[in-house]
């Protein structure tokens, strides 16, 4: 066994002593660590000294009972000295940290767990939190989204007053039978470039465009669409969406916190990628709610499928409105799902 060159510090002054460490036997024939240098000849039983973990090629430290210590870059030499003096578990971390196979395994586990947490964990937590928060929270987030839309997109409804009235009556009849829907209200607007559509806005507002009303061939189709939007509101989708987005950014910023400044840009990208998936989940939940409502009222699911189909055909190209009713690639799938639900 070769000797280990080290620096010895007594803990009282920063003066460095060049020493050599070796294993030997003390007076009572116990194994001891010997520290020898110019004017120094010390020895401690192995049971009384503590050795720092090996972390890469960073310096290794041996701590002695009197507060003095040794520092060395000869990590392998220290390991050799300690053979038989420390449990094998003490070297486990270093083995994991130095093997390429372990690194790949750790990378795979980290990636899978992080992905699962973002895709399932965060939405589940956001759901719990959203339902635990008071209903007013959504108003704080949404603020004046309707007046903003009124300013930039919508114009007042041009439907005949009696038609508007009958729609409001229809809506009132619907919400009377739905628990917790009494605080929601229906707003009719001309959608203009948005075309036939309906939205659930924060603070319990449902907006339906004239174009959608004109597109419908049966009031039960409108009922299906409104039930879908009430589903969004009942499931707190807006609040959950905001919570999920914030939590994802927070998680990414936390994980990469070391370099927070330069990853602030990077953290936005995965969030954007996930948004499509999040909103598809929400569409499904709202569809399920609408389906449950339609079954109760004896409305055939075909009604919803038919209006979805017509909206898809009429959809103006290149709109980027906050669209809760239909996500392009998923519409066909949703229609199939409704039709299959007979």
């Amino acid at each position, binding site marked *: 066994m070769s000797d280990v060159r080290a*620096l010895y*510090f*007594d*803990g*009282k*002054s*920063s*003066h*460095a002593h060049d020493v050599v460490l070796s294993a030997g036997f003390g007076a009572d024939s116990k194994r001891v660590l010997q520290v020898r240098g110019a004017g120094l000849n010390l020895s401690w039983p192995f049971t009384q000294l503590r050795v*720092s*973990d090996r*972390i*890469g*090629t*960073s*310096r*290794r*430290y041996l701590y002695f009972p009197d*507060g*003095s*210590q040794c*520092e060395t870059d000869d990590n392998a030499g220290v390991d050799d000295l300690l053979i038989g003096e420390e449990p094998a578990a003490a070297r486990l*971390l270093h083995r*994991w*940290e*130095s*093997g*390429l196979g*372990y*690194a790949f*395994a*750790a*990378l795979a*586990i*980290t990636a899978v*767990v*992080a992905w699962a947490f973002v895709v399932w964990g965060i939405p589940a937590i956001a759901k719990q939190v959203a339902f635990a*928060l*008071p209903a007013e929270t959504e108003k704080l987030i949404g603020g004046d989204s309707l007046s903003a839309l009124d300013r930039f997109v919508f114009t007042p409804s041009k439907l005949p007053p009696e038609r508007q009235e009958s729609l409001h009556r229809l809506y009132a009849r619907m919400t009377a039978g739905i628990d917790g829907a009494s605080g929601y209200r229906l707003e009719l607007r001309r959608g203009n470039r948005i075309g036939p559509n309906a939205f659930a806005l924060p603070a319990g507002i449902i907006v339906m465009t004239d174009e959608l009303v004109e597109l419908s061939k049966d009031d039960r189709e409108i009922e299906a669409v409104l039930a879908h939007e009430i589903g969004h509101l009942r499931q707190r989708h807006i609040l959950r969406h905001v919570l999920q987005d*914030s939590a994802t*950014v*927070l998680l990414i*910023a936390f*994980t*990469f*916190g*070391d*370099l*927070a*400044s*330069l*990853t*602030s*840009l*990077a953290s936005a*990208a995965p969030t954007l990628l996930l948004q499509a998936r999040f909103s598809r989940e929400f569409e499904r939940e709202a569809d399920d709610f609408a389906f449950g409502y339609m079954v109760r009222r004896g409305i055939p699911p075909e009604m919803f499928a038919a209006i979805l189909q017509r909206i898809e055909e009429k959809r103006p190209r290149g709109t980027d409105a906050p669209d809760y009713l239909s996500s392009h690639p998923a519409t066909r799938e949703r229609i199939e799902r409704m039709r299959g639900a007979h």
Partner: protein
Amino acid sequence: MERTGAPEVALQFTGKAGEYFKIWIVNLCLGIVTLGIYSAWAKVRRKRYFYGSTLLDGSAFEYIGNPVAILKGRLIVVTAVAIYSLSKQVHYAIGLALFAAIVLALPWVIQRALQFNARNSTHRNIRFGFRGSKMQIFGVLAIAGLLVPVTLGFAYPFYFYMKRKVFIDNSNYGDRRFVFSATAGNYYVAALKVSLAFLGFVAGTVVTLGIGALPLYILLSSYAEATFARLAWRNTTLGAGSGEIRFECRWTTGGLFGLYFGNALGVLCTLGLLIPWAAIRTARYKLERISLQSEQGLGGFLAAVQEDVGAVGDEAGELLGFDFGL
């Protein structure tokens, strides 16, 4: 600044990106599978790796923070945040009162954090220390929270200066004290230069129609960081009299820009996989461009006896200092 004939000793950094990648990913993974509990141990290993790879005159720095103390600190912080957010739901007045209590506890928390970090950093088996009082920290916070808003930001360089001064003047290595000799005037001159550079950043962003905003922003922050870092290090001394140690900092705007631009590009293109590489090259650049100069060498420092403090402040300080906008 005046230069004596004494030899300069630069810090040396021996960390390697490939090696650190393996340490980083394994510890990150262990932190995740233990639901964050292991992260306290991971943090200590990470700090020990960086400290133990930073050499001054042939011997390394050492981090001796206790992971259990860090874990306890984290639990206290998480509990405090949870109690605060729950109480806010019950009644806003309770939330407000708790918020006030947290603000008032801030000087204590920051003091403990600085003490914990200093006392757990050693070199040659001699500890660093921080002796700043809660009142001094409260004073610096008052400048930030009251004076800066009242003067519409004009006091910001003064805040920046005082923050540095209180930190350095109260720091020690063994029985030697650090001394900060820059003036508030120095900081105002530096802030003026950075402000002019900011105008250049705005002009450049407009001229390039916003395309150049990100690289120009990195350039601007590199300039600001290099300017203030050189100012601070060159006006810091350790010890007094003929044995005093002076510091030199050779970070340049171009150097930091290349560093950060490369980091951003690498980390973004690999979805974070190059974070360890970025951390290593950042440490190498910054550490190897700081050097010490002393007439007498570095031996002969005596360790000052200090009492122990818990780790609560370290974690609270870390979390509270974590300010990203949402």
